[in-house]
């Protein structure tokens, strides 16, 4: 039987790391500001472009708002394994993880889970604030369907996306075991790639073939589709289908990411870079 205590301990450490630099309430509030601004920026761009073109559609605004909130959510917690390794090596904390009897993969999963919880809280707060502020700015009602069943559907989608995001996190973490500088650029690259390829801001079909096909099949695209099917289109059948593909793709991503991470970790031990302090 798997002992989950290390997972919870790592998650608690992540909460301390992310929130204890000031009071937890203030940290959560400050963490919410960036997602609000990000969601508002993309929504305003859609509004400006579509009103000038005479093609404004409130449901399309909802499409952009939900997508922008959720891609930022995925980027926020999938980067955490990289951050935990890079920061841990730099400050001498990470080698202590190797000294313990538990696996580093479990530690990284715990850190990612804590970030998932924080990011879920801040993303949902950002979605709510942006919904009201943008509605007021644009003098329109953004058509979101918010009732207990759609909120539950969204919550399930958020949970089902965890394996996929964690798989991406392990892949990035495998790289950061070896990296000495570029890992600090990864959040920008991950956020940027998700903006372009996850269907967050526009349908992947506008991308050139075959990139559009690959982008549409990503588990992150499926997750965002499922969330939209829940709270914009209230379409259970489409939701179930997107969620299924999100789960399958996410599990594949997790298995692949974990395999690569374990192989990279074993090689890093042999190469003697496992505790190399970063420049």
């Amino acid at each position, binding site marked *: 039987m798997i002992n989950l205590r290390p997972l919870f301990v790592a998650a608690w450490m992540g909460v301390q790391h992310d929130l204890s630099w*000031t009071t937890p309430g203030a940290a959560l509030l400050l963490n919410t500001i*960036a997602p609000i601004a990000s969601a508002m920026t*993309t929504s305003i*761009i859609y509004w400006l472009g579509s009103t*000038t073109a005479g093609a404004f559609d409130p449901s399309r605004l909802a499409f952009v708002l939900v997508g922008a909130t959720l891609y930022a959510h995925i980027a926020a917690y999938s980067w955490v394994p990289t951050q935990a390794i890079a920061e841990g090596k730099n400050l001498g904390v990470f080698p202590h993880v190797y000294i313990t009897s538990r696996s580093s993969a479990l530690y990284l999963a715990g850190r990612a889970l804590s970030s998932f919880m924080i990011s879920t809280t801040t993303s949902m707060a950002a979605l709510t604030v942006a919904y009201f502020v943008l509605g007021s700015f644009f003098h329109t009602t953004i058509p979101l369907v918010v009732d207990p069943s759609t909120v539950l559907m969204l919550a399930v989608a958020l949970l089902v996306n965890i394996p996929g995001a964690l798989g991406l996190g392990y892949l990035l973490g495998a790289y950061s075991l070896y990296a000495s500088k570029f890992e600090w650029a990864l959040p920008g690259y991950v*956020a940027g790639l998700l*903006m*372009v390829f996850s269907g967050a801001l526009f349908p992947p079909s506008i991308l050139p073939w075959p990139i559009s096909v690959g982008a549409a099949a990503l588990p992150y695209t499926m997750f965002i589709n499922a969330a939209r099917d829940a709270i914009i289109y209230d379409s259970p059948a489409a939701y179930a289908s997107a969620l299924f593909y999100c789960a399958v793709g996410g599990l594949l991503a997790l298995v692949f990411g974990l395999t690569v991470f374990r192989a990279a970790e074993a090689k890093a031990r042999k190469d003697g870079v496992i505790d190399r302090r970063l420049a």
Partner: protein
Amino acid sequence: MVRLWSIYGEPLWVLVNLGFPVLSSLALSLLYVSAGMADYTGFAILGGVMVSFWGNVLWSMASQFNWDKQEGLFEIYLTSPASMPAILIGMSLGGIAATAPSAVLVTIVGWALFHPPIAASWAAVALTFVLTLASLYALGMSLASLYLVYGRQAESLNNVLQEPVSMLSGIYFPSIGSFSPFPFALQVVASLIPLTIGMDALRRSLFFSQGLASVWPSLLALAAMAVVLLFVSTRALKALEKKGRMDGTVAVRIR
């Protein structure tokens, strides 16, 4: 020179600065296209160029002393004969040169992919660009003095500042003027940020043929902001350095 050497001596650092500006301007250009207004893709590309510099100001100017404290470099600055403002001005010039490849790449990629319509008054564009960078980096110097007293909080503060300032200053869309979605009061607040004035003037001179005769009030405001922020940063640096010396905390490595 140290900054230039540190960046160009390790080409990977150039790559580090490229990712977000290139990909975000690509994504937001595609958003303009999908919204039916391909003519505005230039806004997103210009935004990608300027977000490179804004990121550099935040991460390599404002919080630089925090990194330098951790690496033990800050003590060397203190004991050198150079003044802190001189060091920061040198860092600014190096930072601008180091960010240039990212800005150029965003421009080339954006131009090649989207061909945004341009109706430029180049003299106004050039002067606005220079003054925007001057005021932006003067803001970075002011923030550097503030961040002198922070430790790990500096990173969190940067994360908090980056997106909201990008939004308020209208890096990717007009945030002041008749096209702005913001209420008047918010536009007034946004106008206190040098980047807001600079972006507005850049868009008008680059895409709407407005020359020096039209954008001179913005240029005047940018020049005034640069001078005021430079003065504020010099005074704040002196005050906080003196306080740190008296308290014995000026070179403490806060983690």
